[in-house]
């Protein structure tokens, strides 16, 4: 009933207002501005997540990497919320890329890793090193070297 007038009068040509799950909403508010609503970044500066972010879970360091990235670790979200966002990101947006049987992130794990944010490393070099290992020893495609964004 509330959405009725919004859908027609205020949205115009836009799609009707959607309702989100809590992790999806947190992802949209905290990440989607750059990584895209569905994990497809349209900037060559930002890594795409769709169907590929889960490859990082092949390595323990890669699993930690996702939660130690500065904007993840420094997020205003709680450990519980952040675990929810990472699980949504890895298992739904990244669907098909996480190793079979990968455990979901737990709040306690997030609490630990976000206390060690990746601030003392050269981030791009650290990522490159992880990605090379993921490609040579695990299942990651060579395209993971790039960000997969639209390089227009």
């Amino acid at each position, binding site marked *: 009933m*509330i*959405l009725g*007038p*919004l859908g027609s*009068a*205020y*949205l*115009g040509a*836009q799609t009707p*207002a*959607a*309702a*989100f799950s809590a992790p999806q*909403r947190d992802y*949209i*508010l*905290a990440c*989607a*501005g*750059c990584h895209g*609503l569905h994990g497809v*970044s*349209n*900037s*060559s*500066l*930002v890594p795409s997540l769709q169907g590929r972010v889960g490859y990082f879970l092949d390595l323990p360091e890669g699993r930690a990497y996702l939660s130690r990235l500065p*904007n993840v670790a420094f997020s205003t979200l709680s450990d519980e919320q952040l675990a929810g966002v990472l699980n949504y990101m890895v298992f739904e947006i990244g669907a098909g890329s996480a190793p079979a049987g990968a455990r979901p992130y737990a709040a306690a794990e997030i609490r630990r890793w976000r206390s060690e944010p990746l601030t003392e490393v050269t981030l791009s070099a650290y990522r490159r090193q992880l990605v090379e290992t993921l490609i040579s020893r695990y299942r990651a495609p060579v395209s993971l070297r790039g960000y997969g964004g*639209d390089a*227009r």
Partner: protein
Amino acid sequence: MSKSPIDRLGERLTRRLAGYSSRRSFLARLGMALSAAPVLPLLPVARASAADAAKTDFERYAQTSDPTKCNYWKYCASDGVLCSCCGGGSHTCPPGAEPSPISWIGTCVHPESGRSYVIAYRDCCGKPMCSAGKSCHCDGADRELPTYRAPLNNDIIWCFGKASATYHCSTAALLGVADTARK
């Protein structure tokens, strides 16, 4: 004297009305409406006054009819020139300008439903800054964070990453419902 056609029609309508309705049923309905009246209008009014204390200044004066004004509800954190004053819409770029590849995303409260909506603040890029009147230069700041929290900041020109990083104007696209209604 024979009746005129208008008289005959009037008589037929009156008789039909009398056949369908009774004074008793009218009184019953009126009574029901009167007893329900004090209850119904109270609900939204009471809710509005309780929610008022939690409102931001922007939310107190927000409107839903004119997207060329800074107090249009979706612009609660819009900082810049409104594209709706520059030949575009509240969520569309003017001809010749392109939406920024990245943006920041916040929430605005719809003044009538009281619900919070997810809004993507996208800049339109690739043309010199739109020269619209002063009333189109807005500085909403609801739930915006300082520049050192860049992903939630509206002073940043989000055109970077495009071939031309020239800022033209600002849009606010509604993505969906952020929350349930405020209590």
